[in-house]
């Protein structure tokens, strides 16, 4: 086959790859062995494996926002234009200055940071910049990723993870049983093990057999996903799949680079296979020391011969398959087998039994010789490639995440899946790994690597053990063994073996660390999906949003709502615009969008009884066309929201409450209706979004409303039905500003016409639009409360200064809890006002103290200005505050380093008698 070659670069060098080759295969094919530098010691590293377990060959690919560090060269298929760079080296991979660290590795043992960098935190910030440069993986990209990541649900009867022969058989059986099957494979090809070890299955070439099963899965309504890894398994067979739609760094054709699947499966079959274990000997990390099965993969699948003189060092039979594949490809091969020679068996290759590696010799250009003990004697074997096999570790992380247990397989020297808690079963090599011996570490322990990615050596494990780190969990954290993206795929079993040998216990007794998802790295973008940038959270647009946008306001993200904060004129700042708008409301008139208020229509013969349960104020005596301020308590007696209640008909009321608490209030009313008042004949319908609403406030507001409706404006706390710009409206006389004011509620589909009519009249009357900033100034000065900062669910109505309004007849939710003795404590926090003695702004959120350093007795909930007169004021919660009016204390904010002397006052700074409400 003469398919065109693919052009790519590695560290700027132009290279070519054959179609279907991984970056690792292509580099080996080009004779490149040095691929990276190690994390801590900057040791030269090559390619160890042929899959997702690769700890050494980590590269950065792509550019700009598509730059992706720490990509495994063994899990990256070369594409046209691929730009791959090695990591953690300067100035170049072959001449890395950091390599000097390997010469002083004795000074950098396990726990080095903990032992060395003592001192104040600021000093650590100084050290850190050097450490970050000296050690690490690829730097995180700094630009925004331009691509999309999809998130998608899926449902199936059987999810098969892994498409080796065992997984394919499970998929085939499920299809035959009429099941909907999902078959998932992290490789780009199905049945990758059959590419490494071609075989005939059921009388057909293995690949043909695999393809037929995949077709059967698809035609029966299932899916086959390649380049997809199962990253986590949760309760009830809920599995997350991470699918690569393109290769890392590649530009997607349709804008999408990955898809994250949320799959609910009836049954999960884990055919996740096993990862080959390295042998532990000195310099086992040199370029040219590879895992045996990986060597076979490169030879058979990718047509690449990684070395010509090869030593295969094995503890099991699988190594012989590699030896034969190498020989068939023309390599010279010697096998070192840790086991005694079997009687009467000839493998057709030079074999040395009772043999184990002690040390590799070579440098950054690769291994040159392997020193081994053979039947007790030390021998050196010249070679340019070492293929090692220390047995196989079943991939059991999904089984464990599903709450499963592990059993110890003595013959394989490995943990295998045991009891399961969910409908999850493991098949194939993950359940029944090949028998293998465990061979202890040999050679200089300072150069015998257990965890290649985190540069953890046998010596590090021994030191940690000597220093008392006996628990595997502690040892992991002290040495960094199996941390980060590696997750101990190749190193954990060797480490457990070492710990067990030091402790004089068995490996199962040494224990295991926790199997946390993800086993293989998942892009942050995949977890975020389309929720990025300004869409990182849902954005709610009020019905009048487009009209505001045309007036170019300063926006405020109030919860999920996008609300105008102020409408600056010319070069006005936010503060200037807010103050101007507030002053216009105090002296003339202003209009503000209050559509986001929660609104509920409460109807039925028992509507009054329902409302008198929900509201702490009286509702029963409310006359038709009248409204009142109200507040609501939870069952614990503490106030959690407030609003107004209006009687629109004999059995029809409109209840409003806070914007921020709208969802909570909807849930609460549903609960009260369904559980606490199930016997009442009442309906509660949320009309928050059905009604848009505009507040018109100021001494000229009645004049504006009269002009718009051509009738006298209703008196304070009255509601009438009227028409504005041809649209039916509810006109409620209510104030949140301290001025005569109205709320106009109307069908949101009429928003534009009503807004424009009111705006024209307001502007003609010398008024203004105003936003949340002005609203805050106005309401703080008046002492009106906001749910969240002021009404925070921790104070009673009495403590909020609302005691006079409470329905004395009782019956409201929370009443019985107010008899608790603690509520009689007069030293509980109470709502108060504060005025700055020296005129400085009072920091919002600051602590209230008698003197700086004293215990905090409260905090500032909202801070503002006297709108017309100037001077800083605030609302606050203060212990025993209602009896402390006139007292001088301090508002102290250590985080802002501000301290303001304040006087405790009533929270009503403006028109405390409420005379301005009335005409």
């Amino acid at each position, binding site marked *: 086959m003469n398919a065109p070659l693919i052009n790519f670069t590695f560290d700027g060098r132009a290279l070519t790859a054959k179609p279907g080759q991984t970056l690792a295969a292509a580099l080996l094919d080009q004779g490149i062995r040095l691929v990276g530098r190690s994390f801590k010691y900057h040791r030269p590293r090559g390619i160890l494996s042929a899959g997702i377990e690769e700890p050494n060959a980590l590269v950065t690919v792509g550019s700009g926002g598509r730059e992706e560090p720490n990509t495994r060269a063994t899990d990256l298929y070369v594409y046209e234009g691929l730009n791959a760079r090695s990591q953690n080296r300067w100035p170049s991979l072959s001449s890395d200055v950091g390599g000097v660290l390997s010469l002083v590795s004795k000074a950098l043992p396990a726990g080095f940071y903990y032992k060395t960098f003592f001192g104040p935190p600021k000093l650590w910030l100084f050290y850190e910049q050097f450490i970050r440069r000296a050690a690490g993986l690829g730097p995180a990209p700094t630009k925004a990723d331009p691509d999309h990541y999809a998130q998608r649900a899926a*449902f199936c009867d059987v999810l098969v993870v892994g498409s080796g022969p065992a997984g394919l058989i499970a998929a085939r059986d499920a299809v035959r049983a009429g099941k909907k099957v999902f078959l998932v494979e992290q490789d780009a090809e199905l049945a990758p093990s059959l590419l490494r070890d071609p075989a005939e299955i059921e009388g057909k070439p293995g690949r043909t057999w695999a393809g037929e099963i995949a077709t059967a899965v698809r035609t029966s309504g299932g899916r086959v996903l390649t380049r997809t890894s199962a990253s986590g398994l949760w309760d009830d067979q809920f599995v997350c799949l991470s699918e690569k739609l393109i290769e890392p760094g590649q530009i997607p054709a349709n804008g999408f680079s990955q898809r994250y699947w949320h799959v609910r499966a009836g049954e999960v079959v884990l055919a996740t296979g096993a990862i080959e274990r390295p042998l532990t000997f000195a310099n086992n990390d040199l370029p040219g020391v590879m895992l045996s099965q990986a060597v076979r993969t490169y030879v058979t699948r990718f047509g690449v011969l990684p070395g010509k003189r090869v030593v295969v060092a094995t503890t099991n039979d699988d190594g012989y398959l590699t030896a034969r594949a190498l020989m068939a490809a023309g390599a010279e091969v010697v096998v070192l087998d840790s086991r005694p020679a079997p009687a009467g068996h000839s493998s057709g290759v030079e074999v040395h039994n009772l043999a184990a590696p002690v040390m590799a010799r070579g440098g950054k250009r690769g291994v040159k010789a392997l020193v081994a003990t053979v039947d007790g004697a030390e021998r050196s074997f010249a070679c340019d490639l070492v293929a090692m096999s220390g047995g196989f570790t079943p991939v059991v992380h999904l089984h464990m995440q599903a709450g499963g247990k592990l059993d110890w397989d003595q013959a394989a020297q490995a943990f295998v899946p045991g009891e399961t808690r969910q409908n999850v079963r493991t098949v194939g090599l993950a359940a029944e790994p090949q028998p293998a011996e465990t061979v202890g570490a040999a050679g200089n322990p300072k150069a015998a690597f257990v965890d290649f990615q985190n540069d953890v050596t046998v010596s590090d494990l021994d030191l940690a053990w000597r220093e008392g780190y006996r628990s595997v969990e502690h040892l992991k954290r002290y040495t960094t063994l199996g941390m980060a993206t590696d997750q101990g795929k190749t190193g954990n079993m060797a480490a457990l073996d070492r710990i067990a040998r030091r402790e004089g216990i068995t490996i199962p007794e040494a224990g295991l660390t926790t199997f946390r998802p993800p086993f293989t790295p998942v892009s942050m973008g995949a977890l975020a999906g*389309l929720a990025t940038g300004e869409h990182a959270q849902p954005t709610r647009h009020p019905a009048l949003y487009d009209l505001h946008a045309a007036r170019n306001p300063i926006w405020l993200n109030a919860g999920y709502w996008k609300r105008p904060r102020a409408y600056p004129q010319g070069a006005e700042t936010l503060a200037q615009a807010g103050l101007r708008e507030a002053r216009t409301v105090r002296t003339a008139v202003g209009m503000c969008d209050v559509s986001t208020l929660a609104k509920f229509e409460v109807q039925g013969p028992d509507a009054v009884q329902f409302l008198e349960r929900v509201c702490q104020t009286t509702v029963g005596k409310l006359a038709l066309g009248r409204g009142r301020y109200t507040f609501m308590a939870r069952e614990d007696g503490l106030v959690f929201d407030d609003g107004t209640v209006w009687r629109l008909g004999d059995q029809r009321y409109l209840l409003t409450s806070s914007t921020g608490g709208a969802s909570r209030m909807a849930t609460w009313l549903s609960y009260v209706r369904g559980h606490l008042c199930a016997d009442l004949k009442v309906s509660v319908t949320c009309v*928050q*979004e*059905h009604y848009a609403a505009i507040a018109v406030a100021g001494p000229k507001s009645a004049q504006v409303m009269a002009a718009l409706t051509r009738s006298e404006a209703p008196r304070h706390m009255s509601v009438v039905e009227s028409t504005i710009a041809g649209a039916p409206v509810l006109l409620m006389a209510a104030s949140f500003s301290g001025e005569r004011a109205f709320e106009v509620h109307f069908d949101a589909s009429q928003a534009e016409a009503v807004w424009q009519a009111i705006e024209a009249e307001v502007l003609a009357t010398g008024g203004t639009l105003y936003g949340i900033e002005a609203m805050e100034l106005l309401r703080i000065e008046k002492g009106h409360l906001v749910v969240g900062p002021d009404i925070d669910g921790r104070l009673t109505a009495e403590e909020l200064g609302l005691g006079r309004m409470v329905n004395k007849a009782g019956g409201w939710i929370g009443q019985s809890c107010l008899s608790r003795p603690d509520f009689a404590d007069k030293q509980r926090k109470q709502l108060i006002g504060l005025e700055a003695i020296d005129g400085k702004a009072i920091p919002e959120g600051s602590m209230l103290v008698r003197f700086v350093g004293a215990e905090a007795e409260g905090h500032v909930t909202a801070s503002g200005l006297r709108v017309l007169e100037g001077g800083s004021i605030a609302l606050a919660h203060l212990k025993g505050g209602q009896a402390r009016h006139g007292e001088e204390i301090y508002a102290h904010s250590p985080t802002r380093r501000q301290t303001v002397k304040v006087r405790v006052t009533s929270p009503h700074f403006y028109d405390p008698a409420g005379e301005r409400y009335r005409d």
Partner: protein
Amino acid sequence: MTEVSIVELGRGALHQLELWGDPAPTATRIAKALGHALPPAGRAEGDVLRLSPTSWLVSGDMATLAKALGDGGSLTPVGGGLVQIRLSGPGWRSLLMEGSLFDAESADFAADCVATVLIDHVTVTLRVESEASCLAYVPASLADDLLRFWQISAGGLPL
């Protein structure tokens, strides 16, 4: 790419019907007036769509319904708060799997089936109109956000 058409229909004249007390007599009167029973959980019929055990979303002739309702419940306008979006084409079911945890690809989710689900954090009520289309009732404030989500997602649907 799997084809799907996303058309915003805007707000409509919708009401929420709620029943209180013993619903049976009222439901009987309504069934007589409408010519069919109030649809059960997960179903729609004619102009009526079931929302919750005691509530339905209704469109069309309110006068007949209001008369039949009498004092057995309430009829409240809610249409100003809901934007209707029609999804059609071969990919509409696939699109509904994006950003959700709901099996829109199930054959059981057939014409006149109703489901209230979370899609991209938005509570959406879906009514299958036919095998060719589905109508989504979306809170008006979140419609822009969800439309954007669907328009982007439609470009990356799996085959």
